[in-house]
């Protein structure tokens, strides 16, 4: 399986960085997400996760390090978490970490709680300074 590596940028649109590694099972999305076509960007990531969880059978460490994402991005994050939850329910090993700066904890806590309620996944919040 191939890895996905996208270097994010803040040009006109805010493109997040993506690093999905099929050898290590470490997947990371970082930066900011406001895209011209959100579906077009996230669809390959969702398909990669589906394929990885179906074929690789390795533990997944999923790190979210997004500092901004708009509401349409939030739907695709949910789609990815759903895939992780199905994997976990089928005895796959999943760890999901959400990184945020201490001053933004109040908002991130709510978002993360909403995702946990919605998916049944456990999400660890890791605060940075």
């Amino acid at each position, binding site marked *: 399986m191939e890895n996905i590596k996208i270097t994010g940028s*803040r040009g*006109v*649109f*805010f493109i997040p960085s993506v690093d999905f590694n099929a050898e290590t099972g470490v997947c990371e999305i970082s930066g900011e997400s*406001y895209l*011209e*076509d*959100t*579906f077009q960007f996230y669809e390959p990531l969702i398909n990669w996760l589906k394929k990885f969880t179906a074929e690789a059978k390795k533990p997944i460490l999923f790190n979210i390090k997004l500092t*901004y994402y*708009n*509401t*349409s991005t*939030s*739907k695709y994050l*949910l789609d990815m978490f759903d895939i992780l939850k199905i994997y976990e329910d089928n005895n796959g090993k999943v760890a999901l970490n959400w990184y945020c700066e201490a*001053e*933004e904890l109040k*908002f991130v806590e*709510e978002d993360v709680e*909403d995702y946990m*309620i*919605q998916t049944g996944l456990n999400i660890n919040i890791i605060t940075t300074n």
Partner: protein
Amino acid sequence: MKDTNYISFYNFYKPYSENVHLSFKGPLDKNVIAVMGDLVNRNLGQNKVQGKLIFSVFIELALNISYYSDEFVDYKNPDKRIGVGIVIISEYSNYYTITTGNVVSNHNIKKIIDKCNTINSMNRDELRRIKRDMRRLPSGTHGGSNIGLIQVALTSENPLHYDVSRIDESNSFFSILVTINK
């Protein structure tokens, strides 16, 4: 038509000069929104978090106009339909305001008013619950999330203020004002 050479722009600019940080009227193309959003994010707010809250509300409200305004340009390509509207960001001593306005057909206006009233009647937990429920629904026709306005209310932590002015038998003008406390 008047000879535009004799129009002083100062009369137009003056009421804006005191509190307004940014104003835009025209087609809210996603590129335009991104560029203005970046300026907002980097320059407004008394700290980084506040700047991000203003930015986040601005993006969602501007995208709503881009997707749903009933006044639009299509630049000869119906797939590239871009909603027209007005956006103003202002600062006052205790808060910032993000105000947007756009034409809505009378056919659609009740739906928007109902949505605003429903949002205003809910407490934070109820808003979060409908946000979760609606996030499960398929995306809108333009790839929108359908939860923009709910997220705006959650971000603002204040009621949504709105107004409807009837233009004619077909259309109305919908204005919405959102505050971010300092």
